């Protein structure tokens, strides 16, 4: 039942505006792929094209290896969950869930039975006969999920399904969606602009920007080894510093950064160093040794689990660092203090505009 999805060089414009530029993507059977990007990056458009709700200008959509370009939405066998629930008003939860079976000509008794089964799956068996207008936002979206799954689709598409809900409901529903998806084992595409959501849900994350896919990877890799500066900046907070490679380390001034995983940059190559705030640690200023930089604290804010600090190194780099509350210095640090700064690890991107360091430095 569950199928591979592949889209190949999809292009779409609305008038003069290019919304999708040669988007290619492959989702494995049973995989949960989160599509993450800022609003207007084309992620919802891509989803609608996959569902057949919008025609693409060029490119191919394949479901289970079969090209579905000329199939209308109704014959693609794709379950779609909308941001605004898109439930049929003045109908009960059961009627909503049974709709897909009804238009397929399934008899009333049988479709009632199957619809109840689906409502069970999302934990709404009690609300089956209530009008959807009387349900809460979270309940409505669960009805929508049950409705999409009731037609036994080969693909489940969710278009920002949680963004209309308040935070508590959102967090609970996230876990429920994941549990249901794993139980049904259905190939799933989940569009969101919330990186936390993408991290928690996605087996892999596809990060989109301006109609292009910037990176498709496991959440850990997207975070720790972003493929582009956009990905680095969009997913989490980041310091991007100009630097050079030297024997497998990146140097930003005197600060040495150990590479996360493989790195094929040549010695002296100019790079952008991607340094996460929590990968920076601090010590007393007199303990600054090899690969370490002295710095002055510009600001320190207490945020509960950690201290958010802005420090300026003697080389003139401005860094944002997160210091765990349990760190030995966390209590004492204040603006104006001198500290030593060390980078635990980081990653680099090629910097074609960067200066090559003069030979004597190497």
């Amino acid at each position, binding site marked *: 039942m569950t199928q591979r999805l592949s889209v190949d060089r999809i292009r779409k414009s609305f008038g003069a505006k290019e919304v999708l530029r040669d988007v290619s993507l492959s989702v494995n059977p049973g995989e949960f792929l989160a599509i993450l990007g800022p609003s207007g990056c084309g992620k919802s458009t891509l989803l*609608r094209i996959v569902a*057949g709700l919008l025609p693409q200008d060029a490119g191919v959509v394949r479901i289970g290896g079969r090209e579905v370009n000329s199939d209308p939405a109704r014959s693609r066998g794709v379950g779609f969950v909308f941001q605004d629930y898109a439930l049929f008003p003045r109908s009960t939860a059961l009627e909503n869930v049974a709709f897909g079976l009804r238009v397929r000509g399934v008899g009333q008794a049988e479709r009632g039975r199957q619809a109840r089964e689906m409502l069970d799956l999302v934990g709404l068996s009690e609300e089956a006969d209530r009008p959807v207008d009387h349900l809460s936002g979270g309940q409505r979206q669960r009805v929508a999920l049950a409705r999409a799954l009731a037609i036994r689709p080969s693909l489940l598409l969710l278009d920002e399904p949680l963004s209309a809900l308040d935070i508590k409901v959102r967090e609970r529903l996230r876990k429920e969606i994941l549990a249901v998806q794993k139980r049904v084992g259905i190939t799933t595409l989940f569009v969101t602009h919330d990186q936390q959501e993408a991290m928690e849900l996605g087996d892999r994350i596809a990060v989109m920007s301006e109609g292009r896919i910037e990176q498709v990877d496991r959440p850990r890799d997207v975070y720790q080894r972003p493929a582009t500066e956009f990905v680095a900046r969009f997913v989490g907070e980041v310091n991007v510093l100009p630097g050079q490679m030297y024997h497998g380390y990146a140097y930003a001034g005197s600060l040495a950064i150990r590479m996360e995983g493989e790195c094929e940059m040549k010695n002296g190559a100019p790079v952008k160093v991607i340094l996460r705030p929590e990968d920076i640690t601090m010590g007393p200023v007199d303990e600054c040794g090899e690969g370490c930089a002295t710095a002055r604290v510009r600001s320190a804010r207490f945020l509960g689990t950690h201290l958010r600090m802005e420090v300026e190194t003697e080389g003139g780099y401005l860094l944002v660092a997160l210091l765990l509350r349990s760190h030995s210095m966390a209590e004492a640090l204040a603006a104006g203090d001198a500290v030593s700064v060390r980078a635990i690890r980081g990653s680099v991107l090629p910097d074609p505009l960067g200066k090559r360091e003069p030979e004597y430095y190497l």
Partner: protein
Amino acid sequence: MAARSRNLDPLVRWSLFTSVIGLFFVLILLPLVSLNQYAVREGIGVFWDRLKEPDALKALWLTVAVALATTAVNGVIGTAMAFILTRYRFPGRRTFNALVDIPLAIPTVVTGFALLLLYGPFGPFGKYLDEHDIRIMFSFPGLLLGHVFVTFPFMVRAVAAVLETTPRSPEDAARTLGATERQVLFLVTLPSIREGLIAGSFLTFSRSLGEFGASIMVSGNLVGRTQTGPLYIFSRFNTGDVEGASAIAILLAVASFLILLLLQFFQVGRKGKEGTP
């Protein structure tokens, strides 16, 4: 509002209140009462006799038939127009949108006159139709044409207002669930604009019941054939039969009032049932 009126000088408030009530009596209630007076002046038996006159009954029946047909025709083309205006973006849409209200601005008698010139025996269309033995003016189709024209904006506006606030995602949801375009229309779209259709129908129907200006031009006012209720009232009054005119008049007034009441009742009932999310 209540808080502000409490701040008004009691004298000002009192005089405002009485003048509004007074105007309501003079402008609205008094004419209706006098209508009633005339209708039953000779006793309720005479009132019934006047109503049961064959010409009166024919006029009433024609009035209802035209109103029903008008509502049906506008139910289709008015709804279609509402869809075009709200769902599509095309050059000239704003102009088009403004044109829809033209029937509200043109005096109905002018509308009737224009139709007469076009479809009448000397009009360019009329001549052609005459040659093919099709008669529009001075017959039911002419009345229908006039009424459809005059009431057109009511259905369009009522349906468009609902369409504008109705999200389209349920239609897309239905498509992904396997519905054909026909099923989407009948199971999702039309049920979702039901309020607009019903409100538009009531407005169209009651407006058609009382239509006079266009009717008198296009119908020829042929007694027992193309004479609608309002035309009957006018004719009877002109020939001095005040009781006959009043009998039909009071019936039309009561019918319009009931339609209004029904519409109110329907809208209130609708709101009461709607849950707050």
